[in-house]
């Protein structure tokens, strides 16, 4: 199961590598695990469960100096937040399932996000 999940995760990671943006924190996260991405003037932050199991995952953004920009958003398989692109922020992802998940975050900092 874990091997299959890893393979799926690698496949999804490869798909991301063919797009425009910045992926971060690609890898296995334990239940309750979180990871923070790099600093950008974010227009979007997206968290993915790359295992394809549509497990519950969450995203939020932090200010570079600490503190949170808004609250958490949690959804099954993915969660996405759009920002105005005028504030330096760091994306953060969180595994809200009871399982280890192969997951990643993606930050955008120049593209449309309605």
């Amino acid at each position, binding site marked *: 199961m874990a091997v299959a999940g890893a393979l799926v995760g690698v496949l999804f990671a490869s798909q991301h590598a063919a797009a425009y943006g910045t992926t971060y924190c690609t890898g296995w996260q334990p239940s309750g695990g979180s990871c923070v991405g790099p600093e950008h003037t974010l227009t979007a932050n997206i968290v993915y469960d790359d295992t394809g199991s549509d497990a519950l995952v969450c995203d939020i953004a932090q200010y570079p100096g600490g503190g949170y920009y808004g609250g958490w958003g949690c959804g099954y398989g993915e969660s996405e937040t759009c920002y*105005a692109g005028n504030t330096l922020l760091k994306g953060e992802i969180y595994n809200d399932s009871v399982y280890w998940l192969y997951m990643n975050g993606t930050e955008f900092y120049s593209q449309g996000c309605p």
Partner: protein
Amino acid sequence: MPITSVSSAPRVASTAGSRRSLALRAAAVLAVSAAASGAVATLSNSSRPLASEANASRSTASRLAPGEISAVPAAEATAFAILRAPRTAADDFRSIRPGAGPLGANPSLARTALRPATHDGLAPLLVSVVPAGGAVCLRLLITSRESRWWCAAEAAASRGALTVALLPAGPLPNQRTRQFVVGLVPDGVRSVTITSFGGSGHKVPVRRNVYATEMFAPTAISFELPGRGTVRARIRD
């Protein structure tokens, strides 16, 4: 690690998620107009738009972002009355940054499901249902500078599988806290019952295919799906 290349064409997969929006948005920035027009035409053909929307979509076709759908897919209109309802000015929303939404979701096809009178607690300013290519999305306007999107494949959304939660800021999304829960259910579902951590059930009415409530530590949801019996799902693991 910056990623610089572009996927050649939008993909529509069977699972929920906006990962496919990466390619769509990348195309919006980098693809040549001819390729974009082709992609739009392909999606338009496969989405089988409602006749009532076809005329309107023709007038807006030239303004479509690459990959953006041009009309509500018939399967989505069949499952969700809110997407069959005529659009009005009240359905419009101002984009945080103009462009296509996840999976080609088109903001100009959105329908407003909920506009809370007050912005207390975690409640968003606006909840919209936005059709996408092979998927349906919920878009929540949190502030004038922040929106959130969640999408589910048509089949999953038709089973009421699109449920999301907003939680307060903090180091962790603490499960035992107040949360704003919102979800999309198909026609025929009049209410859902959301169970909290303590085991008590909270009946939430469905309006325009959407339910929404703020409550403490929601753990599970159940509802009667016409023709399929009782659907039960965990909200939080």
